[in-house]
């Protein structure tokens, strides 16, 4: 099972490619507000993350995901299930 800090680090490198340049990615980074992503871009981001972690992330979790931390916890949960 992947450890939480490792998930946050890997998410950081995925997210760096999606958001505006120069935004530092931390656990508290807000996906919509700080990275200026719209709802469709967030769903496309999920596709990339699914490949990276080899998991399927239900779109239905999105209402509960606002920050990098929220997403990392969901990934930790889903990778733990395998």
């Amino acid at each position, binding site marked *: 099972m992947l450890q939480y800090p490792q998930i946050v680090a890997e998410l950081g490198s995925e997210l760096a490619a999606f958001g505006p340049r120069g935004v530092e990615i931390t656990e508290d980074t807000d996906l919509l507000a700080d990275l200026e992503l719209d709802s469709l871009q967030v769903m496309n981001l999920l596709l990339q993350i*699914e490949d990276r972690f080899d998991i399927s992330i239900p*779109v239905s979790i999105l209402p509960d995901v606002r920050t990098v931390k929220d997403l990392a916890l969901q990934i930790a949960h889903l990778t733990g299930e395998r």
Partner: protein
Amino acid sequence: MGLFDKFHGLAAARRDLEALGIDPFGVQIERMISPTEGMIRGRHTILAGTNNYLGLTFDPGCVAAAHRALDAEGTGTTGSRMANGSYSGHRRLEKELAAFYGMRDAIVFSTGYQANLGMLAGLTGPGDVVLIDGDCHASIYDGCRLAGAEIIRFRHNNAADLARRMERLGERAADALIVVEGVYSMLGDRAPLEDIVAVKRKHGGYLLVDEAHSLGVLGERGRGLVEELGVLAHVDFIVGTFSKSLGGAGGFCVSDLPELDLVRYSSRPYIFTASPSPATIASTRQALAVLAAGRDLRVRLRDNFMRLHAGLIALGYSLAAPPGAVIAVVLRDRVEALRCWSLLLERGVYVNLMLPPATPNGVALIRCSVSAAHTPAQIDAICAAFADVRSSAGIVAAECDTGR
């Protein structure tokens, strides 16, 4: 946060549009003249953004059938089929749709949107998995959400991506529902249904295909992409709409599975809404009979879309997909698309403006829908307007990259 704070962004976006002098998302057609002509802002305008693929809205037989039903059965049903009863036409239309597809039965819904909402929310619930193509229509997303099912999205038209997600599901794949569209409404591109059927046959699960934009357009008998590609027998549910090729309003699902009939009792969008009016049902039944009777309209539609597609390519426009009844022109950006849309309207051609996030991969589109009722002269006039816009206003087409 105040109740209306979330509207600030929308209000700003609308102010930008109003600077054009007309809101592209609030166009008034002052008077309809024919399936392909109307009056907009006092100008005689060719309508090339109606989804009226077969042009049946003014078909004399359909209009007469609606008149007869209106006289005989009144203006509305005033209630839901479950609580207030079905009229004979509702059930007859269901039987006729089932016969058209060679399937066991059908359910009629009050709109196409509700057909997807009703099928997804009726079929699935918490604990079920629905795998949807990333470019699926909002009604499919909303249906999944209403159902409370687990929604897994796969890359658009990518059967290998679907297969990977089915593999990850393990034993749950056997009961998963895969949802795709025959023709996608924004770009007009088609689903690789043979490949998707192959994934279903390998991993199990059920397949629902939304043929909203392909019913009456594709297939030898007009039964959509499933017929064109010969995969009808491997599709579990076909959803469609009456509001495009059939020129009415409403939607349906056909299936060979006996459980379909039970969906009526579990589908809130079926139960808690008024049923289609007698006139709507009557014109739809007649339109279905016309659609099923021959290929003439489909041949004319095909001639028209081939002509428009070739004309726009010759002008140097970037088109999102091979020839089809939906022809999406890809523009450089939002501003260019807005300008192009507005200039076309000034030249008497009405098309659809499509902007992100409603479009895939952030593309800005001018979307044309072609009708069998367009005359070759009208198609040429549409091309001439596009030519004028390109040469006189310097509209720049995008490199043809829709992110695929």
